[in-house]
């Protein structure tokens, strides 16, 4: 056992790591094109956006008038102008009420709007994921897509929620400056001098603060990725007693995160005394210079009061605006990534005015098809064959021989590079994707089950299927018995990815799903292994039911399935090597016969060995 535990001081570093965070940058630069596209999402909600803006202007204006009114009230009181005093009080009440109401309307509307727009953006992305080619989806990790849909969208939301407020802040800033200058030019100019000082200090501070923020974000994504990995692999962790080591690895990341967060906090707080001190300086200026002006009778006491009140809130909008600037940079980076996703071209789409497929004779035909995920390295070379109505064709061949590409092309998951794929006599590019999808049913090698009940999984999007139809399908594919043995039968909730039923049983559920959809053409990628013999029997029976009365193309791995087929197409390196019935192929003495006589559980592996695939051959 692990003797290494003996001497912890001298032991070498373990061969161990935890987590793999993403390295997206947090801050972006302002890009007018991105901004314009982003604001286009506001288009449909133009009216509420405008109302929100007007409300914000009202709230800024009323807020701006308050210190002035207070100053006037004070002056009026001092001068014993009772009437004016009361009039000003009424004006104050009106301004206060206006502010409260306008503030509510502005914030309420813009926050609602932010949420609305964010949902539109998220929906656009989600819908786009339904349309982009599978090659894009294949090579992009789900976690990354999710961080587009969640994290980046969240950054945009934060930005949007504050946008209207920033307009208000901007108006406030200009307004306060204007008020100060209007009330007393000299004193106004003098107090405004602190503003450039603040801006200069902020400019020095900003890069440091950004760096600290970036560090903090990276550290937290480090720690979170480690946590996520340990949760996903928790069973293995416990099996291999890695708890202690993994905790050590994690604790280090958590500690780093703590340090980075504290550093960012420090950077955030360090500006507070600067702003406060500058406010103090401005106030002191008002006191000394303003007080002097009052003494000399140049300005009124009320004006000085108003000055103090303005100066006091002078820095709020500056602070808010610069915060919003940082938020904007984050939003820019996020928007950039979002549009990157939205700009992934949808290569496979309906032709304008494409009719629905009406496959009266459900045939599948490949005419001189050449195809490769990377066009420079074709996987299929000039492949031609035809599947007649209600014929069952087995596709056989080693990994990489092109079987999977053939079924993917039939469903138009990808576009051919040359040649034509015809379903029911129509080129798949000339009919709608939706009708193609309803004509062709597909059972994948690895059954994917959704969170929900067994019944919901069998029905999937055949929404019209009744409970009876679901049960009938399950019975037909021999899934009914095991389903009834589950605690709540068809209403049993499946765990994460159907964890609570066996792989073979998941396969049966996916068969039932295909049966309920009742497609004219069925494409089936048989599971290679992992099926126990008991379920295997049920599956073989189920396949016969599924094949009944349908045109079928099966990527077959089991001899039983292959023998049941009307015709067998043997593929090798993207070409059809031979085809025909079982007896015919046996008689011809080709590759098929060789495979069959030295048959193995999985047809594939044997073919691989027989064709001398480097990787596998090196083993024997």
């Amino acid at each position, binding site marked *: *056992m692990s003797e290494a535990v003996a001497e912890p001081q001298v032991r070498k570093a373990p061969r161990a790591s935890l987590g793999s965070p993403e390295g997206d940058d947090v801050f972006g630069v302002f890009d007018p094109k991105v901004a314009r596209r982003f604001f286009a999402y506001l288009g449909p909600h133009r009216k509420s956006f405008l109302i929100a803006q007007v409300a914000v202007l009202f709230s800024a204006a009323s807020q701006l008038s308050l210190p002035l009114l207070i100053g006037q009230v004070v002056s009026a009181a001092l001068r014993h102008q009772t009437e004016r005093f009361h009039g000003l009080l009424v004006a104050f009440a009106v301004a206060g009420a206006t502010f409260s109401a306008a503030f509510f309307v502005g914030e309420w509307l813009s926050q609602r709007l932010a*949420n609305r727009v964010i949902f539109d953006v998220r929906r656009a992305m989600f819908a786009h994921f339904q349309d982009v080619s599978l090659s894009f989806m294949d090579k992009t990790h789900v976690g990354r897509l999710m961080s587009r849909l969640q994290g980046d969208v969240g950054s945009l939301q934060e930005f949007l929620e504050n946008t209207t407020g920033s307009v208000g802040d901007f108006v406030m800033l200009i307004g306060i400056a204007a008020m100060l200058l209007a009330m007393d030019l000299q004193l106004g100019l003098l107090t405004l001098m602190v503003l450039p000082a603040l801006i200069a200090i902020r400019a020095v501070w900003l890069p440091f603060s950004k760096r600290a923020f970036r560090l903090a974000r990276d550290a937290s994504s480090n720690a979170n990725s480690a946590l996520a990995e340990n949760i996903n692999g928790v069973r293995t962790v416990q099996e291999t007693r890695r708890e202690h080591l993994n*905790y050590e690895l994690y604790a280090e990341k958590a500690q780093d995160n703590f340090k980075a967060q504290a550093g960012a906090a420090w950077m955030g707080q360090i500006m507070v005394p600067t702003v406060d001190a500058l406010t103090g300086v401005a106030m002191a200026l008002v006191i000394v210079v303003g007080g002097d002006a009052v003494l000399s009778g140049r300005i009124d006491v009320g004006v000085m009061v108003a000055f103090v009140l303005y100066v006091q809130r002078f820095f709020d909008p500056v602070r808010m605006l610069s915060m919003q600037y940082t938020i904007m940079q984050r939003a820019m980076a996020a928007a950039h990534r979002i549009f990157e996703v939205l700009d992934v071209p949808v290569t496979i789409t309906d032709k304008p005015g494409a009719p629905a497929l009406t496959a009266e004779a459900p045939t599948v035909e490949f005419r001189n098809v050449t195809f490769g995920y990377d066009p420079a390295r074709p996987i299929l070379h000039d492949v031609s064959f035809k599947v007649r109505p209600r014929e069952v064709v087995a596709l056989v061949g080693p990994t990489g021989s092109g079987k999977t590409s053939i079924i993917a092309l039939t469903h138009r998951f990808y576009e051919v590079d040359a040649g034509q794929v015809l379903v029911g006599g129509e080129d798949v590019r000339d009919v709608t994707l939706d009708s193609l999808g309803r004509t062709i049913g597909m059972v994948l090698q690895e059954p994917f089950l959704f969170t929900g009940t067994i019944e919901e999984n069998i029905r999937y999007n055949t929404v019209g299927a009744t409970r009876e139809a679901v049960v009938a399908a399950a019975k037909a594919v021999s899934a009914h018995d095991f389903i009834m043995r589950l605690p709540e039968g068809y209403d049993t909730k499946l765990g994460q990815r159907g964890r609570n039923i066996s792989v*073979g049983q998941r396969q049966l559920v996916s068969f039932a799903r295909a049966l309920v959809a009742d497609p004219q053409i069925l494409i089936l990628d048989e599971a290679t292994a992992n099926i126990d013999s008991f379920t295997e029997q049920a599956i073989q029976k189920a396949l016969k039911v599924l094949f009944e009365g349908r045109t079928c193309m099966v990527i077959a791995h089991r001899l039983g399935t292959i023998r049941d087929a009307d015709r067998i197409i043997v593929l090798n390196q993207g070409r059809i090597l031979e085809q025909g019935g079982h007896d015919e192929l046996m008689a011809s003495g080709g590759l098929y016969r060789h495979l069959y006589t030295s048959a193995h*559980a999985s047809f594939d592996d044997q073919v691989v060995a027989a064709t001398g695939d480097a990787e596998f051959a090196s083993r024997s």
Partner: protein
Amino acid sequence: MPRVLARIAGLAMRYPWRVGLTILTSLLAAVASLMLPRLIGRSIDQAHHLLAAGSANSDAAQAALLWTAGLVIAATLARGFLTMWAGYLGEYLSQKVALDLRRAYFQQLQRLSFGFHDKIHSGDLITRGMLDLEGTRAFIQGAMVPALSLTLLIGFAAWMMISADPVMAAIGLGFTPIAGVALARMGFRLRVTWLRVQQLMSILTLTMEENLQGIRVVRAFAGRAFELGKFDAASQEVLEHQYRRITLRFRGVAWMQASYYASLGALLWYGGTKVLDGRMTVGGLTSFVIYMSLLQAPIRQVAMIFNAMARATSSGGRLFEVLDLKPEIADRPGATALVAPQGVLRFEHVGFRYDAGGKQVLSDISFEVRPGRTLGVVGPPGSGKSTIANLIPRFYDVSEGRITIDGIDIRDVTLASLREYVGLVQQEAFLFDASVGHNVAYADPWAEDERIVGAAKTAQIHEHIASLPADYETRVGERGVALSGGQRQRMSIARGVVPGPGIMIFDDSTAAIDAVTERRVRENLSHATATKATVIIAHRLSSLMHADEIIVLDDGRIVERGDHASLVAAGGTYAELFELQSRTTSGELEAAE
């Protein structure tokens, strides 16, 4: 205050010095802040009185003004530094608590047994560890500390105002009860809505995630419209609750603001009248107005505080729910390390059910596996095969009977020593997003290179690894090279072999490996485990037909037992199965012979 919040506050109290310092700096910041109204009021009076007195002794006046101005700068500077310290300390404290929570959560998840992990979605656990933990932390920084400094500020301001003029103070602070009621109502309803938003959000997340993971099924069934429908339904509901939350929040804020301005207006009227009557100086009124303006900023903050409280109540609840669970399987007090000189595994009348009162998964299972011997276990899905495997390293505990190693009940020894002694290779091989070497060495990261390579050779995966771009350094998993099902299983066998356990269990761990390779793996393993007790669970009979004893399970009971020959001769389930497999995959069995 809900108990959850009290508990979060309690976590912060583990750092009494820092909490004390935070309170102190907040208090001093409030004091410094509240110096300003008086100073400014005084300066205005100075200016005004001198003006009124007409004695334009400008030198004395300017000296007085300068003095006041200096004090104002000093006060703002002090306020700035103290606020900074208070803010930093608050955030530091919250991060300290977050660090404690992170560590505790991570350890707790590692401690909680399979029974817990079976029932909860891993995404849910990740959300709790990320978002809910952040929500809990944010309570300290965003609610606890600000609420504290706010209380200090308002309390101190109230005292200053009352000592200056009780009636004015009463008018000025008149808005607080109204604001308080508005807040309390908002706080409660906000909490409920917030909780709902979070629940709905996680449904939406799940919908999106599953769609992306199952995108091939979606495409295959032309499920675009259906999936968009699901998305719209989920997101519409989130949106509606977000709207509700926004309305609640800003209605509360608007009421607070309106009541504040009402108070300020009343104050101006009353104070202004006093000034009119000459019963109050203009500076006195101004200082009250400035007191009020210092109270205005907190109004915005209060809404944020309540928001943070609402979030923390639900987040903290979800986090503590996990942290408070007692691991079902843990060391008994006084458990000792397993010392098994021989390594004889015995099941004695073992019965098992996952939940008390639930379905009986295993009943009366007894067998013995001696060192160097192999037990085969076969049976239909759901017959309890994997359960047997998972009981041996105590991933679950038996409900009846007992399991012993060299006569010692496995519940009497420490989990660590037991799991070190028992090696289990599972059917579904989980590979980490790390290099091949890291994955193979997972159970013993300090193993010598030769052991790693040896294990990989035993599992017939070395040659494949050697052909990878960076051999043992090649990254596998989600962001690395893809491995086939059989390759993954061989990797996990190699991983199981590295630590050289005393008892080996293979839970259907060769199902995806082709028969020829499997046979080689098994031969290699039989050398490696020649002196060890081995349990092989499989549905492919060729995997276990050479076992010294084979038990056939059905519905959790042993229905047949014996060696291959006797079972075939007996003509029962096993014989039937053997016949079936010979027919469908005759070649496979031949190859295995």
